[in-house]
């Protein structure tokens, strides 16, 4: 008998539950009503990586093509193509040959340290941040691009140099302005 009375008493919890959901029905919604509203904490989101520009030239990355990021990335999603060393002209060649003949140290023309291409496959990236940690010149950072969408996987293969330039254009910053 006591069991049945207890069961009847337990029915009170059902009423309590109704009051709680009813109370919430009365209250305003808590969801972010995208696209009418947007979330505010995008700044702390560490999204797809981006190249950081040189302080004086917003279209040029700080990258010195040391390849640390490429070798560190666990997913192998970064590809950096170096510039080839410029071919010495005929005169330079001759000058070099003469210098060599004189037994001097020959300064061969060096390849520019800036990257020719900086490709990034976002579809492979796991956003661990190791690339940005190992970068000696702090050239890799995270973007807070949460709204990136694409239809094809190939669209996630990003050319970071182009994106850097596009960003500079978007922000209307040019070399001259900064200088």
């Amino acid at each position, binding site marked *: 008998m006591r069991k049945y009375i207890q069961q009847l008493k337990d029915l009170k919890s059902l009423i309590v539950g109704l009051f709680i*959901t009813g109370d*919430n029905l009365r209250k305003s919604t808590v*969801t972010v009503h995208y696209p009418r509203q947007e979330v505010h904490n995008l700044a702390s989101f560490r999204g797809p990586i981006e190249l950081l520009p040189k302080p004086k030239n917003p279209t040029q990355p700080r990258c010195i093509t040391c390849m640390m990021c490429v070798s560190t990335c666990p997913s192998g999603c970064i590809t950096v193509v170096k510039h080839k060393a410029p071919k010495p002209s005929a005169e330079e060649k001759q000058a070099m040959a003469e210098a060599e003949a004189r037994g001097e140290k020959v300064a061969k023309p060096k390849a520019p340290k800036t990257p020719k291409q900086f490709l990034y496959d976002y579809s492979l990236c796991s956003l661990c941040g190791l690339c940005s940690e190992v970068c000696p010149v702090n050239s890799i950072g995270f973007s807070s691009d949460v709204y990136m969408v694409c239809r094809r996987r190939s669209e996630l293969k990003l050319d970071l140099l182009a994106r850097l330039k596009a960003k500079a254009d978007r922000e209307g910053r040019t070399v001259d302005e900064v200088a």
Partner: protein
Amino acid sequence: MLDVILSPQFMRIVLAAVAVMAFIAANGLVLVYMERKIAGHIQRRPGPFEVGWHGLLQPIVDAGKLIGKQLFTPDGADGLLYWLAPVVSFVWVLPLFIPIPFGPQLTAFEMDLGIVLILAFSGTNLLALCMAGWGSNNKWSLLGAARAVAQSVAYEIPLLLAILAVAFTSGTLDLSNTVKLQGGWPWQWNIALQPLAFLIYFICALAETNRAPFDLPEAESELTAGFHTEYSGMAFGLFFLAEYANMIVVCAVATALFLGGWQGPVFSGVWWFLAKMYALLFLMIWLRWTYPRVRFDQLLNINWKWLLPLSLANLMLTALLTKVF
């Protein structure tokens, strides 16, 4: 023969059938919208919002989507039963609306045994669930159908007894008469005389319409989707519509039996009926979004150990009191 067809009564029934179809479809859409909006706001989110003003057109678009979807028969299914089930489920809901007195004049067909007709036809929905469960050639559907049978059979008894108690007090099985015998103010309603019968009726109605917390035949976390696991497109849509139509029927019957029907303190009319009916529907929706689901043996225990004895006692007490007074 011709004079039968041309008789006003027959014409009235035909007209009523068409009107009922329209009513079910319209109310189905309203209910779907209402359910989703209430669920949304209970969960602190806006619910459908994008199609039309505050998502008003969402149910219509959903219906369009369901109609546009491909219908296919699963491998090894019994074609006849499989396709008959949703049709049966929907078609047999229509007669249920015929004796319901929405307003003083707004009754499709007043009949002396209106309640009996509703009780008789409401059992056929179960047949549809059985056909769907067996015809689908799916084990989940079969389990869902088996649950539906046990649940429906069990809960029909206290439902019947609760209605009988009201029939005893008002002395009629005609729904229109039952309404007329009640007054406009809440204390003149049958619920004041029969609160326990109303409670039992409402719980049984939840179980009969497979609404949470008694939605075991389609318990999605246990049986994926129960009896309609294999259905797609409008075949599923018909089940869906029939479920909502059944909800409307049980709430309409409750309104007529217990809540004074179209009678109100002021301006008696169909609007009072609809308002009371939707209040009950709102309660059903509210319950669904609050409670977990009961287990199957508990469901039957509630019926056999609580509702049945209570409704029997209630009926006997009612009979005694009507005899004495």
